[in-house]
């Protein structure tokens, strides 16, 4: 099948998902609650790292898209069986995966843009850091959406999924240096922070914005890891979407 044909239907399914998500506007708003609370803590306790925390809030917000994809894909599959309606149709499984992931990303974009505006006001950066930020956010979206979709296909019950969803979000979004600077991480563990998708993204943006000092090796490790993870997981996501379209 031609490459173009495999993506046919992505746009329509993306629009469908945006429509569905916009009805849950409260969930979209509360999606920024954790970030807002953490930002308030930082503002009260350590105002000097507020720009770093704001970049962290942007990265974390995009990383949360993966959790939304996980929950939505699982809900649509387990509760509505709509995956069967779409998989037994000319629309390819990868168009289903990409349409859903993009739709959720776009639906959750407005609060992310609000944080971006606050960041512009609090810490005005040049064009390069913004370019790095956008590239990193897209990479984080690719990682989290692919991971979320993959996990969503592993379980047969929504209740089983919730703890995993929460675990991954906290382990990759809160624990590593996303809302705080990389230099606070003990030297021996810093490599791990530069390998994880969320903290590598924040480190790269912070480095580009001059908020943190990164060595050449640090940039290489963080940039290389993030790029490899984003590409590899996206390809895996497509492979898995095709595989999951037919149960073994």
């Amino acid at each position, binding site marked *: 099948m031609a490459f173009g044909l495999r993506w046919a239907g992505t746009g329509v399914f993306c629009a469908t998902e945006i429509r569905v998500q916009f009805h849950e506007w409260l969930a979209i708003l509360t999606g920024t609650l954790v970030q807002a609370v953490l930002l308030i803590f930082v503002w009260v306790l350590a105002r000097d790292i507020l720009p770093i925390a704001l970049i962290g809030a942007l990265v974390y917000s995009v990383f949360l898209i993966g959790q939304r994809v996980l929950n939505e894909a699982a809900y649509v599959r387990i509760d509505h069986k709509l995956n069967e309606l779409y998989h037994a*149709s000319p629309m390819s499984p990868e168009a289903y995966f990409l349409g859903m992931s993009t739709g959720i990303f776009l639906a959750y974009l407005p609060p992310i843009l609000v944080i971006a505006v606050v960041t512009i006001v609090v810490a005005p950066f040049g064009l390069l850091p913004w370019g790095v930020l956008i590239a990193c956010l897209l990479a984080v979206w690719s990682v989290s959406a692919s991971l979320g979709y993959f996990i969503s296909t592993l379980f047969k019950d929504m209740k089983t999924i919730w703890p995993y969803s929460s675990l991954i979000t906290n382990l990759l979004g809160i624990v590593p240096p996303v809302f705080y600077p990389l230099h606070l991480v003990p030297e021996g563990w810093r490599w791990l922070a530069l390998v994880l998708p969320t903290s590598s993204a924040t480190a790269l943006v912070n480095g580009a914005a001059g908020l943190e000092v990164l060595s050449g090796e640090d940039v290489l490790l963080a940039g290389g890891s993030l790029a490899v993870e984003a590409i590899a997981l996206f390809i895996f996501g497509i492979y898995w979407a095709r595989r999951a379209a*037919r149960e073994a």
Partner: protein
Amino acid sequence: MTSPLWRGKEGGSGGARPRTSSSYKNDATALRTRAIYAAFRLRRRVSELALEAEDVRKTYHGRSGPAVEALRGISMALGKGERVALLGRNGAGKTTFLRIASTLLAPSAGRVEVFGLNVTRNPEQVRPLIAVVPQEGKPFFHLTPREQIYAYLRARGIDREIAKARTEQALTQMDLEEVSDRLCITLSGGQKQRAMVATVIATEAPLLFLDEPTIGMDPFARRRVWESLRRLTRSGSTILLTTHYLDEAEALSQRLYILEEGRVLVAGTAEELKHQVGGTLRVTIADGGRLRDAFASFGTCVREAESLHVITGPERINEIMALAMREKVSATVGPVTLEEAFLRAVGRSIDEE
């Protein structure tokens, strides 16, 4: 308010549009379908069958516990334009077979072909030719029925104008016009199910799989679905459905397959199955289970709970009623139904767990 999806009839061609050759010109799905047919015609391998299954087996290997044999060698064939029902109790294998045939589940062994295309080897070529109403499927709760149908047709690659026309047609056929702009979450269970059926019938796919399509619907809505499905097969589509409702199987399907424990027990038309029962009349004797021996000479006796059904011919009715009066039990006479055919084939009622 205009939604990202289409919300109303504006700009559309209005009501129902028949499947004319001109409408096909803009219909991506139909074009693909015709391209696949054309390719196979060239190779002289066009199948006259819409679906052909041979010795299909499915075994589920659980992480814990023994393996479960859901299908133990199912074979069947559906001609183009046929309406065929799979009838069976819970766990008989109906849904498993439907999911295999619709490319959603891999078989453990055997072969299923849709219009001559192997569903295991060529799922991408099969999928444009089929549409599925999943068992217990629900529409997107935060879409209206109109949006749900239209969005699905567009996702299948159907042209905008044709999708609008077919959406309106499906809403009318399923009697959903009044609620067409209400969010599906606010609809009753039966209305949600009708929205699912409308979504699938609007595709006008050459082969439709419907898993319990009328579950939760009131009798009027069920009849509307039946009429829509009959209309679809008249225009050339083929339908394979599963059902628990014996009256639905009898009224709707041209042929039936009765499944039990992953096997086809009997197949044929409803009339053929009823003939196999061994009589044309059924005498139901309330509290007659204990009198089985006394009635055994009149015909086939089938016990159901405390009742006894005697399948017989009209020439024995007077004798049976006389015996019932002597035994002081009430007896009612009626024509043999599919229920008796099912009881005879399976040995248990369709509702029995």
